[in-house]
């Protein structure tokens, strides 16, 4: 059964993994000995992880994996991409099929506590929103009484939807699809009066999938907090620390003004923070089980967080998303890198 396939794959992965018990602290060694990082990504979310026309994976989540590969293996190209459906993703990580799940996944208590995995850091602060047809004259989600709302299954989206309208005392009818394409096609054909998903995806859908973007509007309400970030298997603190600190380094690099092109020239910088970052002074890599140039290599491979953001989802991308919450803490956002020292 076609429909069962993700479920079966997920279960098969779970069963297959049972033969080998989890080994704490071994992920980093195994990645080094294989010379490859297995990175779980989506099956195609433009801006976050999607293969381009040449088959190259691109996106914010993709660049995180590339940065980690550069820091750990010295080569951002040494990544094996494993596209995962939303139903397969946790099992694939739990079973060891991937070393890291970097797949626009919301960090929530249940997922953090009950799935045998650890979220490492937030790479994108998202929130769920709505899109409607302009001619419906709807200007607020509160006007969606009795509306039918198209939604793609397999995320926290359905629960947020029902939570939000319960608190509003409004009844709506979800029309749930398992695949992205039919869900947006149904919406654009007029089957549903609204479409809901994360705001970043709404921007993309309106810009790239709508027959005419101006016929559709994104409503002002953001009904949920969706902090997206990579997760790793529980029980391997060393690997957890590596992923967490590479992401922190990408964010810190933006704050310090270390860009992809200036990494090498900044090695001469007198700023002790920059020196530490680039491994010129103290050796921060040693505590992580890496060498002293780990952070420099990560930034040289993919740029700092700001560059990653602009290239994939921001001003230099088709999505043109504003930095919003994803700006640095001193620029009106909530990105706050833990100190690298």
């Amino acid at each position, binding site marked *: *059964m*076609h*429909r*069962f396939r*993700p*479920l*079966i794959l*997920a*279960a098969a992965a*779970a*069963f297959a*993994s*049972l033969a080998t*018990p*989890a080994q704490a602290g071994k992920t980093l060694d195994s990645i080094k000995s294989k010379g490859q990082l297995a990175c779980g990504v989506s099956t195609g979310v433009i801006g976050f992880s999607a293969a381009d026309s040449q088959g190259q994976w691109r996106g914010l989540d993709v660049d995180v994996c590339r940065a980690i590969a550069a820091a750990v293996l010295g080569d951002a190209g040494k990544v094996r991409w494993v596209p995962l459906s*939303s*139903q397969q993703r*946790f*099992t694939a990580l*739990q079973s060891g099929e991937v070393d890291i799940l970097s797949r626009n996944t919301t960090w929530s208590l*249940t*997922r953090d*506590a*009950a*799935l*045998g995995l650890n979220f490492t850091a937030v790479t994108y602060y998202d929130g769920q929103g709505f899109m409607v047809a302009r001619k419906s004259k709807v200007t607020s989600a509160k006007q*969606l*009484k*009795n*509306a*039918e709302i*198209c939604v793609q*299954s*397999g*995320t*926290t989206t*359905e*629960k947020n*939807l*029902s*939570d939000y309208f*319960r608190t509003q005392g409004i009844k709506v*009818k*979800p*029309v*749930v*699809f*398992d*695949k992205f394409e*039919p*869900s947006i*096609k*149904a919406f654009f*054909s*007029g*089957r549903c*009066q609204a479409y809901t998903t994360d705001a970043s995806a709404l921007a993309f859908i309106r810009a790239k999938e709508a027959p005419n973007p101006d016929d559709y509007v994104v409503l002002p309400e953001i009904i949920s907090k969706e902090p997206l970030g990579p997760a790793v*298997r*529980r*029980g391997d603190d060393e690997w957890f620390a590596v992923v967490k600190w590479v992401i922190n380094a990408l964010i810190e690099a933006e704050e310090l003004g270390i860009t992809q092109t200036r990494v090498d020239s900044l090695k001469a910088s007198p700023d002790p923070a920059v020196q530490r970052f680039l491994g010129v002074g103290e050796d921060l890599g040693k505590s992580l089980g890496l060498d002293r140039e780990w952070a420099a290599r990560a930034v040289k491979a993919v740029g700092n967080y700001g560059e990653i953001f602009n290239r994939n989802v921001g001003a230099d991308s088709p999505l043109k998303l504003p930095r919003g919450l994803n700006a640095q803490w001193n620029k009106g956002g909530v990105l706050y890198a833990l100190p690298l020292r």
Partner: protein
Amino acid sequence: MPMPHAPRSASRAIQAIILIAVVALLALLAVTTAEHLRQRGIRSGFDFLLEPAGFTLGESLLPVEASDSTLLAFLAGLLNTLRVALPGAALALGVGVLAGFGRLADNPLVRGLAAAYVNAFRNIPLLLQLLAWYFILTDLLPAADSALHLAPGVLLSKSGLALPWWGEAGFEIPEPAGFGIEGGARLTPEYLAMLVGLALYSAAYIAETLRAALEALPPGQRLAALAMGMTPRQAFRLVLLPQAWRAALPPVTSQLLNLFKNASLAVAIGYPDLVSVAGTSLNQTGRAIECLLIVIVIYLLLSVAAAALSHRLERRSLRGSPA
């Protein structure tokens, strides 16, 4: 030299040993799975079934709220599966029989149309057919505020087929209101596409089965009936059809079972069936093995029940003389 038959007691013993081995293997699998899940800090168990589902179904025979248990949501999903599979099976049987006869009709136009139908629908993957039906319905139908009035109180639009039916306010006539059509009963485009898609796909197979069963009868049967003075119509109804039906019954029931299993494609076009509910629950709770097991067990039980029913029908048709 013929193989000596094992004494009955030895054969029983072998069966018992195999049974014990299979049960032990399954138990070992279950225990090992539970142990490894625990070691990895993955919560497991079926306790989530009693917790609030947190999501609602777009359409359901049971009024399920987000605060109701996940178990109830599963039940509503199962009812949705049956709601499309049972009428679908009846429709498939009706269309299948007609098309099967059509393929053997004397009129070449009828024969050609029946053959074209069977070949087209049998040779296109069902998923594509379902998507095609769905997008034909949602693309071509008018919006709810300009719905087609097929009959007084019967409205057809992008939000589906609305019919007069008993609702909260007694007998209701559906009317366009707000974002759609309110009052009465409604068959959504998702439901209609599933029903039509499943029925026409299975009917094509049923038609082929019937045709094959009729053509497999020895030609002497028909000639003998005609020689006895029956009209061709009588020969078909009294002599050929009963025999063909007996031969066709097992494959036809297995087609109807397939229809039931194919109903699991529903989530592709947004119909909230059992698999759709299981997929959503899996995502909210992370209990992959548990959710999958529930679906497997339900499908297995229903299929076994349906198979038992069809077996009884077969025995009856062999014993009695069908009218």
